């Protein structure tokens, strides 16, 4: 059973990793724990769902063994754009103003208010029932002895890896990426060197929201779309971001994987009812040994 639980963990972990990257970026550059991040995942999944439904569902031509075809690819691009716009609007209306007041906790509580609002807007617009991109369920195939996964799950893991590599290139090779890292490290210094902070803030939201949207779509693809989905994932995302060390993109990936795998493997030892507690216990244990997370920099 070990192999199966490990595979389950990796699949959940790659969704968590993408979500956690966005969280860790906004956390680090904008300096507040954004509880509305989960709602960006949810909206991302629903934006994509609109496109998929507009194309008449993903039943049409599909890519080989996968459950979807071109509509979902279009949907991925569309949702990245729409979710980014949504994030920037929320930032402009609420967070931008609160940032000026310099009270971090107001931002956190406001983000919680925003998450309540965004989540229930989904309920009003799309209804409370779960939705699916495809009515087909893929039957898992045995890829190793005792390990069964579906083609979609493999796709999700692979595309997550590709996105992470692209993000790595963006952050290390482009001027914008470098400026974002510099801002995260030291805002005042970055400002002195002539970096346009407003631009950085905008791009932070774009990158974070796009990744959240993709994570939402992946989650919808492997599980389901639900108004509560982002909120249900949020605590795991926080655990992943902090476990890995806030501000570290690689830490977020590692954190997502560790949380996903540990939660699923824990079923070998204790009742699955305690699964969420495992993620948090692990996070606290790691923090006790490394107070700034596995890959985090010392900030205190």
């Amino acid at each position, binding site marked *: 059973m070990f192999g199966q639980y490990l595979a389950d963990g990796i699949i959940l972990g790659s969704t968590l990793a993408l979500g956690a990257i966005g969280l860790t970026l906004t956390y680090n550059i904008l300096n507040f724990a954004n509880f509305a991040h989960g709602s960006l995942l949810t909206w991302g999944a629903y934006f994509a769902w609109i496109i998929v439904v507009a194309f008449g569902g993903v039943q049409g031509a599909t890519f080989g063994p996968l459950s979807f075809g071109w509509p979902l690819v279009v949907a991925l691009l569309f949702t990245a754009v729409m979710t980014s716009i949504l994030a920037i609007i929320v930032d402009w209306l609420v967070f931008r103003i*609160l940032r000026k007041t310099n*009270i971090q906790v107001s931002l956190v509580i406001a983000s919680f208010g*925003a998450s*309540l609002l965004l989540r*229930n807007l989904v309920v*009003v617009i799309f209804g409370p029932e779960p939705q699916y991109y495809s009515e087909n369920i893929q039957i898992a195939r045995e890829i190793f002895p005792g390990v069964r996964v579906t083609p979609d799950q493999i796709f999700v893991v692979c595309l997550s890896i590709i996105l992470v590599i692209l993000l790595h290139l963006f952050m290390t090779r482009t001027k914008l990426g470098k400026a974002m890292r510099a801002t995260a490290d030291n805002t005042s210094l970055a400002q002195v060197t002539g970096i346009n*902070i407003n631009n950085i803030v905008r791009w932070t939201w774009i990158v974070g929201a796009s990744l959240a949207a993709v994570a939402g779509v992946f989650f919808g693809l492997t599980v389901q779309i639900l108004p509560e989905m982002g909120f249900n994932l949020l605590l795991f995302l926080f655990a992943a971001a902090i476990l890995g060390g806030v501000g570290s993109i690689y830490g977020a990936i590692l954190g997502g994987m560790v949380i996903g795998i540990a939660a699923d493997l824990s079923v070998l030892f204790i009742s699955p009812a305690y699964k969420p*507690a495992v993620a948090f216990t692990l996070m*606290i244990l790691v923090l006790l040994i490394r*107070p700034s997370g596995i890959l985090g920099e010392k900030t205190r």
Partner: protein
Amino acid sequence: MIGWISYIVFFLILASIYAIMALGLNLQWGYTGLFNIGIVGFFAVGAYTFSILATPDQVGHLGGYNWPFLLALLGAMVMSGIVALIVGVPTLRLRDDYLAIATIGIAVSIQLIANNLSWLTGGPQGIYNIPQPLANYFSSNLGYNLFFLGMMMFILVLVYVGLERMVNSPWGRVLMAIREDETAAGSVGKNAFSYRLQSFVIGAVLMGLSGALYASFIKYISPTLFMPILTFQVWAMLIVGGSGSNLGAIVGAVLVWALWTGSGTVVQWLLPADIQVKGGAIQIIVIGLVLMLALLFRPRGLLGERKEVAAEETKSKISNIQ
């Protein structure tokens, strides 16, 4: 008219239960800068401890000790304090925002234990038959609730006066000094960690007290109550009321609880009958909106202006962005 009085009494009892939690949080956050978002965990510990100690014989879970009300209340406070001590010793050394996620993780874990450790907590079935103090001496429901409200007011005043004295004592000044600059406070020989721990434990004891009072008033608890949303209600109360002000915590509790429970009436009143089932979602949208507007217009809360707010300590890196 009697209905209105009855409802307002009921409302104020619940609001003051929340107010005690908000006061506990104010000590932790407003005066010490401890970012605790696991309030509901300590609330749960208090509620369950009280229920286990105070209930008469019951099957299905630990209990049947039949302790008198005040003793059980004390037991609940002690137990919350012990849990806070166990939680606080390792986690209070963490960064503020890490402490936040650690505490919410602990609160989620406590909820899971409540839901799954049936021999202790009754599991999903919860604990019923929780006794109320002096319930036999009252014949009418309103009469009893009036008595309960009187008791709540007494406890609230006691907690308020106690906290005001504490924060204005040398002890409280050390707390605020640590909040503003831990290194400086440490250099004049104050053990910052010990003070933070004391504040954390006392705040948690108040949250436990609040849980015990809730259990006694509602007479039934079950794991569905102890969700993270409760923590955010309390935070919203403190931030809207004004962090760093004990009076603000109380005012905030009344206002936010009025918003949370009263918005349902307004929504129901305004919505046409055929989309009433959407009323719940619209109500929460209204709550989220009002919460954000309150923060936008008064980011320091209603009464939080005079005293400096703790958040200054964690300077927002890009506060001056336009």
